């Protein structure tokens, strides 16, 4: 029983970590809490659903397609909403409010055009069977979800930490003006980051949609609650922290659902968030930064 819950926790935690990674990357580089991130999550899931249903693609092809579409939409929305505020160096709350309005608009639009009923992937997507390892049963879908999440996390970390592009992105995050003086195209980097985090959000949407086999327009809204918890618990803009906090939340939710009550499962994220704010407001690995006016 416990072993099975731990396996489920690892799979769930990996998808949360992936989701939070894109969210925290966006915040870390742009300095904006972009609430439309939950929309990319739903967009990715719907795009994958559409490509498996209408185009008959296997899930291995639907996943990158969903991520790609979500990434492109993320770049478009970011350009449309935030360029003007960035130019004016508007305070972060103004950006937060713009994305809030856009989120309401997009969710309402998606609900109106796609309907709010829960949709499911075609059964053919899941026909891989399952492996029995003693007390533990692992589905091929679970292996796929976990593998894809880990591969994406590793690829993103390698990109950000180990490549010239990643160096440029980190330079823009640290100080956009100084980065521009070093010959880095700041606007391009912001679009790259928008695309990356949108694509990661979309991929997470596909994987979480697979995990629960339930897709609907507001799935991103429910996920955002967890996203906030994870980025606060991990520390705002801290990639490592987001990974650790995502896994932690996955375990906490699965164990709460199994041993306490499934009602409390949805409250776990919030409880972790409030506890972190009280006891470690700067996150798991956080250290205080000097405040600049």
């Amino acid at each position: 029983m416990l072993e099975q819950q731990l396996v489920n926790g690892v799979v769930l935690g990996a998808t949360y970590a992936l989701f939070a990674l894109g969210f925290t990357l966006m915040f870390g580089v742009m300095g904006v809490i972009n609430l439309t991130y939950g929309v990319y999550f739903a967009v990715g899931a719907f795009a994958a659903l559409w490509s498996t249903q209408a185009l008959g693609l296997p899930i291995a092809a639907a996943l990158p397609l969903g991520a790609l579409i979500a990434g492109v939409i993320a770049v478009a929305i970011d350009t449309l909403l935030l360029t003007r505020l960035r130019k004016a160096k508007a305070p972060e709350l103004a950006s937060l409010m713009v994305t809030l309005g856009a989120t309401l608009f997009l969710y309402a639009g998606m609900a109106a055009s796609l309907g709010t009923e829960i949709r499911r992937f075609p059964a053919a997507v899941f026909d891989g069977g399952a492996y029995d390892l003693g007390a533990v049963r692992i589905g091929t879908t679970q292996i796929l979800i976990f593998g894809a999440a880990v591969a994406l996390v590793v690829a993103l970390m390698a990109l950000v930490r180990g490549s010239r592009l990643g160096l440029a992105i980190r330079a823009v995050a640290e100080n956009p003006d100084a980065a521009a003086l070093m010959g880095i195209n700041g606007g391009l980097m912001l679009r790259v980051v928008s695309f990356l985090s949108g694509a990661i959000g979309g991929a997470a949407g596909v994987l979480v949609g697979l995990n629960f086999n339930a897709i609907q327009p507001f799935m991103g809204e429910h996920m955002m609650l967890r996203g906030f918890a994870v980025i606060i618990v991990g520390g705002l803009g801290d990639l490592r922290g987001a990974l650790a906090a995502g896994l932690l939340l996955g375990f906490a939710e699965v164990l709460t659902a199994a041993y306490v009550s499934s009602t409390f499962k949805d409250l776990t994220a919030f409880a972790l968030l409030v506890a972190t704010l009280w006891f470690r407001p700067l996150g798991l690995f956080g250290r205080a930064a000097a405040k600049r006016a």
Partner: protein
Amino acid sequence: MWQTLDDFYWTYQSLIHGIGVNGILALSIYVVLAVGQLSLGQAAFMGVGAYTGALLTVKFGTPFAVSMAAAAAVPALIALVVGGPTLRLTGVYLAIATIGLGEITRIVFLNWDYAGGALGLSGIPEKGGVLAIYGTLAVVLIALILVARSRIGRAMEAMREDEAAAGVMGVNLPRYRMTALVVSSGLAGIAGCLSAHVSSFIGPNEYGFETAVTILSYALLGGIGSPVAPVLGAAILTLLPEVLRPLADFRLMVNGLIIVVAVLFMPRGILPWRIARTG
């Protein structure tokens, strides 16, 4: 003459109540925005106030005044637990800490059988009515105008425009933020209690994310230069779906659009004038 007025009242009763209640909600978010913070928990505070007041009235038969007081106190307490630790951090933290509150209150009320669970709470006796709603609105509005005109109002505006400078000038930032948060959640709770006692029914799904964003759009459309502006914004946004009937299905999209346009192109709202100071 009286007959016509009476008919008018009965026809548009819920709209008249709605404008007043939403006016109070707009003032509740104004109080937070006025010190440069953002709370996305106003709908949840409203819901907690509505349930607190209605439960007391229905289950314990307390007088209306007691229900109202409790409906203000309980959300204020929750605001302190959830928002309290964020008061020494930047504004983003309060926004994030409160954004999940709507979902949390929904889950709690949905699973709390004593409070009716998914069916909600019905048969709330009608109390207060138009007089209580508009009386509260007027008292709160006048009080906030007086505050805005005073030294405190000056400090609040300084915080909003440049927090670091205000802090250096001796404004006690955490204390102002804390007071604003407590007052604002109490006001939202009162608005919830008032609306519960005129609509006779409350349900767990009424106080979610959409409601929180709608409340924010009142203040963003009106502006926060003076306390009058958000009330005007609330009146316009409450009347709008009635006037534009065909739009009703897209009301949430319109609200979202209003927020985007207001922040991008009219950062000071439609009523931008500032209030004269006395202190």
